[in-house]
């Protein structure tokens, strides 16, 4: 970017950001919104919580989001791979599993996560099935996130494998590699490169969607903010939760963009 470019982009940034800020600041209800959403004192109180007033800490709630996210992520990577492997299999014996796997990805990519959350979170306890019906809301939440996101991730894996040119498979089989060895030594190492950016994208989504577990009553950041709001009649807790989610997802989004740009440069360099 030349000097004129720098000046132009700085100027347009100042004007546009300034306009947005002005609209927000000078709107008729501006002071009210600032009081209800951006009250610094209440934001801090929501963040740390106050046991004497029965206020839960949004910050502590986020820890629940974190472990739900981490656990689901690991499970999603495994279950997704399993489903993709079944869908890509060619053995006639696995035909019924292929049909099931296809139905699975169709259904869980189609039904909103929130609805699955209600069905599992309120349905399973009703079954009175001992272990299955006695779990905490957070555990049901992780199960739902795993079930829903595995459908997406399975498709990401599958697209990655299918993106490797057919000639690679022919060449690998021609040097005598078995189907499994071909997958392991030739196809998967090449698929991984294509798969990582979309996979990280899905993980950013998954991080945010841990907030949906609040509908089952798990005390995570969103739920803590809601309780705070209901008690103090102020929404600043929601702002705190939003900022905390951003702090979680932004490093991941930036990293994903970096990988995509890196890959694009590699391709444009003709390598």
């Amino acid at each position, binding site marked *: 970017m030349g000097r004129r470019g720098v000046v132009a982009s700085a100027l347009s940034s100042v004007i546009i950001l300034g306009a947005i800020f002005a609209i927000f600041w000078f709107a008729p209800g501006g002071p009210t919104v600032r009081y209800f959403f951006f009250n610094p004192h209440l934001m801090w109180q929501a963040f740390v919580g106050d046991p004497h007033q029965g206020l839960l800490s949004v910050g502590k709630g986020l820890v629940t989001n974190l472990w739900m996210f981490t656990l689901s992520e690991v499970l999603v990577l495994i279950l997704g791979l399993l489903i993709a492997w079944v869908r890509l299999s060619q053995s006639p014996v696995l035909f019924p599993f292929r049909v099931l796997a296809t139905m699975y990805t169709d259904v869980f990519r189609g039904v909103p996560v929130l609805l699955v959350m209600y069905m599992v979170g309120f349905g399973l306890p009703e079954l009175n099935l001992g272990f299955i019906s006695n779990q905490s809301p957070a555990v049901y939440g992780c199960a739902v996130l795993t079930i829903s996101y595995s459908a997406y991730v399975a498709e990401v894996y599958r697209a990655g494998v299918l993106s490797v040119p057919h*000639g690679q498979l022919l*060449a690998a089989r021609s*040097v005598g*590699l*078995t189907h499994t*060895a071909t997958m392991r030594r030739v196809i998967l190492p*090449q698929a991984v490169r294509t798969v990582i950016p979309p996979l990280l994208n899905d993980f950013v989504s998954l991080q945010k969607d841990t907030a949906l577990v609040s509908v089952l009553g798990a005390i995570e950041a969103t739920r803590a903010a809601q309780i705070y709001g209901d008690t103090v009649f102020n929404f600043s807790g929601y702002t705190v939760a939003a900022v905390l989610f951003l702090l979680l997802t932004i490093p991941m989004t930036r990293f994903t963009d970096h990988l995509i740009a890196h890959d694009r440069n590699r391709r444009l360099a003709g390598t």
Partner: protein
Amino acid sequence: MTEVVLELAGVVKRFDENEVLRGVSITLHRHEVVCLIGASGSGKSTLLRCANLLETIDAGTISFLGQSLQDPRIDPDLVRHHIGMVFQSFNLFPHLSVLNNILIGPVYSLKRRRAEVREEALALLERIGLRDRADDYPDRLSGGQQQRVAIARSLAMRPTLLLLDEVTSALDPTLVGEVLDLLTDLAHQGTTMLIATHEMNFARDVANQVVYLDSGVLVEQGSPEEIFDHPKHQSTRNFLERVR
């Protein structure tokens, strides 16, 4: 006569309704080079893929060293240990260095020790004049160099038979020579090869037998002199007229 390596008898291959090979019979002896010529779509590539079981045939038989490949007890992966294949588009593995491209077959198919095969692989690279590129990745090499590596990758398996599918068709004209020279060397050293090619002069130089295919039918086969100088069939004459 020397030992028969590959024998195709009445081979038929269909893709859905489309009959790509219509009863092709070819016999290939040890140390022999057979060149398949014919227009694009005449079935040359399909025939090669059937020979190393990348495709299954619909009728006829293919036997390799006297053993029928249609026998259900045959393990295709083991057959491919002995039949190498080189492709028009090289198909080197882009995530592996040149050396590892050559080692992958011996190490993971033949389960030989890497340290032991490494010396052989380097000797092969020496032979194709690319010893100093062993640690480079394929995308750093020219098309001709990549194709030579692909040939070395097949040779590392010490195949009984080498199948070559129009291996110079994707190359810049200035790079064709280096690949054909390597193949000519191999032919002189007695490598048994079945070669689909559009390079008529090369076929005339190296082939013991030339086979002309048209729309999946074997029209004519014979010595290079018989096919190129005295073709019996009108369609062979027309084809040779067009490619000259």
